[in-house]
């Protein structure tokens, strides 16, 4: 059964009565006479704190949810003992209560129905009904095509349990946009070099560094809490910051050196830095000698990569390239060339990440204080369950054999490819579960995503908000927010092994449910109850905690618990200790034997990338410190801080186009795609004249997001051209070009309202 999945705006179902206007009816000043308490800050002593860890981004800072005597959640404050946040949440974490209070939340399960006249709408359903429908579809899929035809997209903590369910069901196709659209190239590039990846939170020892090099990593706007705190501490301690960014980022403004690089030419700069460091004999000789493989090849490789050569490509003056290289070397080994996080830029990103890794190796910073530390995490045992069935097929079958051998996680775009039927594929993916990711905003090339969705038998979306992706679902399940639920323990690695508990501070609002309940219910219906032998998640957590010498009761009291390291090897190469790297040669591979074997360049090469055609500008995008992607744009607390994005335009460009500051324009990209909504122009000197910049995550098209709807424009819809990374399938998204339309273009959206 193939339906053309119309985009439905969740509307008829579940509109809460808007409380607008009531306020103005009150006699001014009257309510104060009655109830003074509401207006005054509640004192901490009068409130009850419940431990949690934040889910507004993937840094997962631990904190306390404060609940007042009336049961209202009043604030979320960081946990002092948590190394992710040191007692201070970032603006999004502090504003996390806005997710709980959002009146536009998903309130009940919804099922897609078709009227006799063919129009589709969402019907409000009970949980039993919705879960039955999903179980029935999953069961049918399993029987008719095999469980491998199911795929799960999952991002965020709650996804772990859903993954467990999908693995028990028998599918290996579990993906998130945080690999092929984010960290992927970095992890593959670093693993090829050091045999280990960078992890999350990054193992970067920013706190103790003397020289921090940021290559397009806009810490300060990228608000990953630990990093921003440590960067500030490093500044305080007099560290040098070198920022390479075509835009004058906030980090650039706090840096000693800002290298306003021409976009897409970073590789040339990195090679020139290597050239200077090697040919001026500035590298860490003992370290390189002891640990690395392929130094001579590298030396030969960068022989001609002089700063003068790089100047012609990057527009960075040779003298500055030399000065900054010397500055790094002077700080070595306490220098950190930051690997970045969202690194899927131009399609040669694994190679760029390799270059960054190599540079770090030359400077001897891996395994050293002020460079990359050796993180450790607490090993929490899994609750006993039968082994997962062995899948017979996977998403990789959609590609020629051997392709993407180095890929360490499932490609989200690979799932899309495997969903679109093709003659070489005996079976395509037919069912998707989407948990906690808004694919419409996070995957590039929306046309392809929609094509994949149109080939599905069913699409289930589990979300908290009526985000764009929910409009394509057959069944929508409303999850409660992180403040209203238990989740798995946080066990992410850090300097000290540490665990954190999330527990509910309030009952789920509306008819929403936690992911553990949802998955357990589905498991029961699918005959997978053996994989869920616990009654409720408290039992599971308590069992796990007791295995590691704690208990649920203890964790409810402390929220965060640290464990001693197994070995004293935080800086495991500090004194040139013996070490065998997990690579083919057992060494840090400056020259990658692995890449060579797979037919890729063993040493990174500079490649030229497309440039904007006449009248077009490179579309550059990034983060705003007060928002996380598209998920917070309707959060009232954060909406107050920033309620739309703007497009940054250099004054010279603005003059040329006769565009004024504050004027609204539509953006049109090289493929003729026009932004659904106009976007406000910010004329600013902080941006080059060959590119424009906008914050990702705005321009929502669903009216149910009453605050976010139509505010600003979406970069995602303009990223239609993708440059695939041949090594690992990452989607290079920064070679899209836009031009300005000053008049409203014809309406190019088709939508069905119900």
């Amino acid at each position, binding site marked *: 059964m193939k339906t053309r999945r119309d985009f439905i705006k969740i509307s008829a179902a579940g509109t809460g009565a808007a409380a607008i206007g009531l306020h103005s009816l009150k*006699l*001014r*000043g*009257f309510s*104060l*006479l009655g109830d003074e308490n509401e207006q005054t800050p509640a004192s901490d002593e009068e409130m009850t704190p419940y431990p949690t860890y934040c889910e507004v981004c993937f840094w997962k800072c631990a904190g306390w949810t404060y609940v007042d005597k009336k049961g209202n959640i009043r604030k979320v404050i960081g946990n002092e003992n948590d190394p992710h946040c040191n007692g201070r949440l970032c603006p999004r974490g502090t504003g996390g209560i806005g997710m709980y209070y959002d009146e536009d939340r998903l309130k009940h399960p919804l099922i897609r129905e078709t009227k006799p006249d063919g129009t589709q709408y969402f019907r409000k359903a009970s949980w039993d009904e919705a879960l039955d429908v999903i179980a029935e579809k999953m069961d049918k899929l399993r029987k008719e095509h095999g469980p491998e035809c199911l795929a799960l997209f999952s991002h965020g903590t709650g996804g772990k349990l859903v993954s467990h369910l999908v693995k028990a069901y028998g599918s290996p196709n579990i993906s998130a946009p945080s690999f092929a659209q984010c960290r992927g190239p970095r992890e593959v590039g670093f693993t090829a070099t050091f045999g280990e990846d960078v992890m999350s939170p990054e193992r970067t020892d920013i706190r103790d560094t003397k020289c921090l090099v940021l290559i397009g990593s806009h810490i300060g706007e990228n608000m990953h809490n630990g990093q921003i705190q440590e960067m500030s501490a490093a500044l305080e301690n007099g560290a040098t910051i070198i920022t390479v960014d075509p835009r004058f980022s906030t980090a650039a403004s706090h840096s000693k050196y800002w290298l306003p690089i021409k976009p897409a030419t970073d590789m040339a700069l990195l090679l020139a830095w290597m050239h200077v460091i090697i040919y001026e004999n500035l590298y860490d000789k003992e370290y390189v000698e002891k640990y690395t493989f392929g130094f001579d090849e590298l030396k030969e490789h960068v022989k001609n990569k002089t700063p003068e050569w790089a100047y012609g490509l990057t527009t960075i003056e040779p003298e500055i390239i030399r000065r900054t290289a010397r500055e790094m070397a002077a700080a070595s080994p306490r220098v950190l060339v930051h690997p970045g996080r969202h690194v899927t830029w131009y399609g040669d990103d694994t190679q760029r990440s390799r270059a960054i890794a190599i540079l770090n190796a030359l400077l001897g910073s891996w395994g050293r204080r002020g460079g990359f530390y050796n993180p450790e995490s607490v090993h929490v045992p899994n609750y006993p369950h039968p082994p997962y069935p062995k899948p017979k097929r996977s998403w990789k079958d959609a590609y020629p054999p051997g392709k993407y051998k180095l890929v360490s996680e499932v490609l989200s775009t690979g799932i899309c490819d495997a969903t679109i039927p093709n003659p070489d594929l005996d079976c395509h993916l037919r069912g998707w579960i989407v948990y906690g990711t808004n694919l419409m905003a996070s995957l590039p090339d929306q046309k392809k995503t929609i094509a994949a969705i149109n080939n599905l038998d069913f699409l289930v979306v589990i979300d908290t908000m009526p985000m764009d992706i929910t409009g394509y679902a057959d069944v929508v399940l409303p999850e409660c927010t992180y403040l209203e639920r238990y989740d798995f323990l946080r066990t992410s690695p850090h300097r000290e092994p540490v665990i954190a508990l999330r527990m509910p501070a309030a009952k789920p609002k509306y008819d929403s449910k936690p992911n553990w309940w949802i998955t357990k219910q589905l498991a029961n219906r699918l005959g997978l109850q053996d994989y869920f032998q616990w009654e409720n998640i408290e039992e599971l957590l308590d069992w796990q905690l007791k295995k590691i010498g704690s208990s649920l009761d203890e964790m409810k009291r402390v929220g965060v618990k640290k464990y001693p390291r197994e070995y004293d090897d935080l800086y495991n190469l500090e004194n040139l200790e013996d070490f065998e790297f997990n690579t083919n040669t057992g060494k840090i591979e400056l020259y990658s034997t692995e890449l060579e074997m797979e037919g890729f360049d063993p040493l990174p090469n500079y490649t030229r990338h497309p440039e904007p055609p006449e009248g077009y500008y490179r579309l550059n995008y990034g983060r705003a410190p*007060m928002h996380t992607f598209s998920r917070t744009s309707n959060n009232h607390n954060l909406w*107050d*801080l*920033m*309620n739309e994005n703007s497009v940054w335009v250099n*004054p010279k460009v603005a003059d040329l186009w006769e565009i004024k500051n504050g004027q609204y324009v539509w953006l049109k990209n090289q493929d003729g795609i026009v932004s659904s909504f106009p976007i406000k122009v*910010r*004329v*600013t*000197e902080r941006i080059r004249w060959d590119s424009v910049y906008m914050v990702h995550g705005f321009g929502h098209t669903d009216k149910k997001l009453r605050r976010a709807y139509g505010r600003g424009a979406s970069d995602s819809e303009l990223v239609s051209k993708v440059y695939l990374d041949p090594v690992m399938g990452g989607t290079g998204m920064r070679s899209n070009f836009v031009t300005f339309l000053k008049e409203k273009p014809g309406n190019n959206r088709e939508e069905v309202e119900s």
Partner: protein
Amino acid sequence: MKEELFVSGRNIPNIDPYLHVWHWQIPLYLFLGGLAAGILFFASYYVVTDKEKQMPYTVKWAPIIAPFALVLGLGALFLDLKHQLYFWRLYTTVRITSPMSWGAWTLMLITPMSFIWVASYMKEMFPNWDWKFEILNKFEAWIIKVRVPFAWIMMALSIILGVYTGILLSAFNARPLWNTSILGPLFLTSGLSTGLATIIWISKDKNERKLLSRIDLILILVELFLIIHLFMGFLASSAVQTEAAALFLGGEFTVTFWVFVVILGLAFPATLEALELRGYHVPAWVPPFLILFGGLVFRFVMVEAGQITRFLY
């Protein structure tokens, strides 16, 4: 290029991007306060100087308007309050540093006095008038007896009121346009002038009008002089004040101010009055109407424009 913006999206109603806390109520209140002050000043002045007989309209008839103006003005002020149920808090304390406070107290005193003043002339104005209650008649008799000292007090209060309408604004250092000591005398003069215009409009006594027109002419000249002084002061002052003045010298208030306030509201009626004094026939209502209108516009412009001006930092 220099750029300044709120990163945190600050957009508080009536404060961003421009301060607009005071709307029509405050200028109207200032206008009516000034007008009442003018009327009451001249009424009491002519009683004190024993010219009651020559100036019947000034002393008896025009003051009828004053209590209405004051009550209306107070009403406007009340409407402007955002926390109205606490209005009474004004009268639980005296704040010497707050013009708003002593303004409120002045009004508290002068408003009933204006009623009493009018009441004390009721029988003279309407011979058939009767107070019905003996106590009221007695009170009236007593007031008439102490009318001269009563007038002295009211004259003092009316000056305070007139000055207050200007000081209210000029006390706000934060708004460069208001931050000048000329505003006090300017508003006082303008208040007196609008008061006079009202009396002139009402008066049916030729001699009285002639005398008042002469005074008004002087007041208008003083006003014009003060306005020139005001701008000279601004232009010789700090950047923020130069910028404030620029609103009137090419900026968005230029036409409103120079055409409606200075030309139509001052210069033109002054010319008409001068012509009238020389014996030319001018419709009696025209100059006072223009003066009143100009005075009203003047206060609106000052309150609006003042809120736009701010310190640059």
